[in-house]
């Protein structure tokens, strides 16, 4: 959107006026309740936008405990679809929910645009230590807090043990071993690949994160981008070899071919966030019992570095007329009884109390052949490398990832050149948006 700022403001003013005039004629419109101006935490109504399917049951449970509260949970689209809708609603100044699910990578973009409320004054600043470091730093912008973690995605190596055993390949513990394993698997059976990749922004940034890279550094509106730093180079060098030797299945993640490959053993492993078990159980039933979880391969033997991949916060919107109630429900979902509902549904928590509880750690997963997978995943959560930052326009950056870095997968362009092209375009965009990007 390249609308001049005055227009935006005009639209917002007109939107606010119409909102005031129509005053929530229909119960479903956003902006919170109109009948309850006091905004007490005991009565009122909330509109929540979330695509995660555990939010609805948590809202039901909350309403059982608070009979005077009505919470309307709406799936307004997944990821980008919802962000578009959210931006439209904010621009129009109407139909804005009280709370919205926002992935960690997108939090800075919405926060700096003024769409999200800073909840540090509502009590969130006292929650230090409640969450594992990755998600906790992700909802921060300086001292301001723009949401609370719903889940987290510390990374691990999910691998199909049946395939690895069949070809006598050891599970890799370092990235060098990973490369050897990729060669061995593909040589043993040309239809088998150690992983699939056609260029995935979230995966790439997480890999750079684990390698110790800090390509994005943000201080207010001053942004420094360096996608050729040591961490980025480590990743690019390794992955370039996998691409050059055709060791990656040319299948996009989340496509139906991907689910098929995960089921029939042609995609032998995934380096992905800790929320993956739920997706495997729901979408890849036929491979039940074949998958296992191991720590993420390391750049140095014996190290234990990890990164976050995916995961979402739930954020209170600045336009909400009922922030106290919204915050009350948010804490219920994020660090109250809601966490239990999420975990039972297969979600991966961000709360340290749950991550360290014996019940959680000792849970044997039938799908993973009885393995206590949470031991591996919890350890990964504790090992996340600190100090990572996303761009305040990461949603846009990720949307052009495939036009730039993605070229390395389909042409003679190298990953390093792709990253450079990405950096160039993102820098231009950032400067156009009023940031100072170097």
């Amino acid at each position, binding site marked *: 959107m390249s609308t001049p700022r005055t227009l935006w403001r005009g*639209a917002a003013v*007109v*939107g606010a006026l*119409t*909102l005031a005039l*129509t005053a929530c*004629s*229909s119960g*479903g*419109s956003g902006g919170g309740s109109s009948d309850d101006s006091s905004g007490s935490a005991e009565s009122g109504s909330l509109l929540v*936008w979330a*695509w*995660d*399917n*555990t939010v609805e049951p948590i809202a039901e449970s909350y309403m059982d405990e608070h009979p005077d509260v009505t919470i309307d949970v*709406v*799936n*307004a*689209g*997944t*990821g980008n*679809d919802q962000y578009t*809708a959210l931006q*439209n*609603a904010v621009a*129009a100044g*109407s*139909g804005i929910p009280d709370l919205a699910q926002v992935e960690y990578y997108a939090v800075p973009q919405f926060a700096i645009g003024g769409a999200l409320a800073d909840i540090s004054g509502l009590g969130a600043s006292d929650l230090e230590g409640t969450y594992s470091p990755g998600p906790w730093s992700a909802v921060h912008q300086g001292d301001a807090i723009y949401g609370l973690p719903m*889940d987290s*995605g510390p990374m691990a190596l999910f691998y199909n043990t049946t395939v690895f055993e069949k070809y006598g390949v050891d599970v890799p513990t370092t990235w060098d071993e990973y490369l050897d394993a990729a060669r061995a698997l593909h040589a043993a059976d040309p239809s088998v690949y150690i992983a699939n990749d056609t260029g995935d922004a979230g995966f790439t940034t997480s890999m750079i994160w684990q390698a110790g890279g800090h390509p994005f550094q943000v201080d207010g509106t001053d942004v420094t981008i360096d996608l050729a730093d040591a961490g980025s180079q480590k990743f690019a060098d390794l992955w370039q070899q996998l691409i050059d030797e055709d060791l990656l299945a040319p299948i996009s993640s*989340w496509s*139906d071919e991907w*689910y*098929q490959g995960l*089921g*029939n053993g042609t995609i032998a492993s995934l380096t992905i*966030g800790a*929320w*993956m078990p*739920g*997706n495997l159980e*729901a*979408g890849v*039933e*036929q491979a039940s019992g074949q998958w296992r979880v191991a720590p993420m391969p390391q750049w140095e033997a014996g190290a234990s570095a990890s990164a976050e991949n*995916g*995961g*979402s916060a739930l954020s209170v919107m600045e336009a909400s007329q009922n922030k106290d109630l919204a915050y009350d429900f948010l804490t219920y979902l994020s660090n109250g009884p809601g966490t239990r509902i999420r975990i039972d549904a*297969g*979600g991966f928590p961000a709360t340290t109390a749950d991550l360290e509880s014996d019940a959680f750690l000792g849970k044997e997963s039938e799908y993973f052949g009885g393995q206590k997978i949470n031991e591996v995943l919890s350890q990964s959560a504790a090992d996340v490398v600190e100090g990572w930052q996303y761009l305040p326009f990461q949603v846009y950056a990720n949307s052009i990832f495939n036009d730039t870095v993605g070229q390395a997968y389909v042409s003679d362009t190298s990953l390093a050149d792709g990253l450079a092209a990405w950096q160039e375009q993102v820098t231009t965009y950032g400067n156009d948006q009023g940031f100072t990007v170097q």
Partner: protein
Amino acid sequence: MTTTAPATTPAARPARPGRGPRLRTPRRHSVDRPRRSGLLTVLTALVCLYSLVPLAWLLINATKSQGDLFTSFGLWFSGNFHLVQNVTDTLTYDDGIFVRWLGNTLLYVVAGAGGATLLAVLGGYGLAKFTFPGKRAVFAVVIGAVAVPGTALAVPTFLMFSRMGLTNTPWAVIIPSLISPFGLYLMWTFAAEAIPTELLEAARVDGAGEARTFAQICLPLLAPGIVTVLLFTMVATWNNYFLPLIMLKDPDWYPLTVGLNAWNAQAATAGGEAIFNLVITGSVLTILPLVVAFLLLQRYWQSGLASGSVKE
């Protein structure tokens, strides 16, 4: 099929000996015995296959469970007939939201396409049979409007509706659907052809009012055209995707198109539940009513297309 003479003869065939030169070869093809072309038959068969394969794929795969979708050959059955279970699951998943979406779609079609057809009939008749100042300007506007794709108007419409507070309500889908420039143009040309002006004059001479003339004399004459427009607007509303996508945020008001897409997106997110089998079964259930509508209305439609082509 009538039987015809065996395969066509090569062109350069020597004349049969012992006969004088033929002045005219007898016509071997007629309306009853059309000329046959192997090439055209093959081409037509290919196009036919091309159109039917996706439909066949959809029907075949609606009978498979999610696991079988990925493990069996796409264009044949898996041996495990899962259709009944799929249909049951589709109708009951997420508290039966699919049925709600079907109801929404029907509402949008009845109100939107029905309204669009009504307006097109009234407008087309008026423009065809009455003269008034500014008629040419109206004609220019309508023709211009036909050229504007609805998708291009969706975003401005959204901004306008959001200021009026109409977004996220059924009105946001129904009101834009009421306007069908193409339907209006079709009715206009059809009415101009189908209703002889002398008939209107006769009716007026006999003392019938305009409303009665329209209802009792013109409407029956317009029936084929009305059905054609109804079919067009119905298909357009039934398949409308982009407009409801940006207008509606509440799944309770989704039409089937947007709802199925939301289901499909579930597979592409952390913590989402992949339900490919329900997406496919839902798609089959979505196209069934359209197929039925076409089969039922086909007679009228065909007569509408051919009307006026032969002087009787």
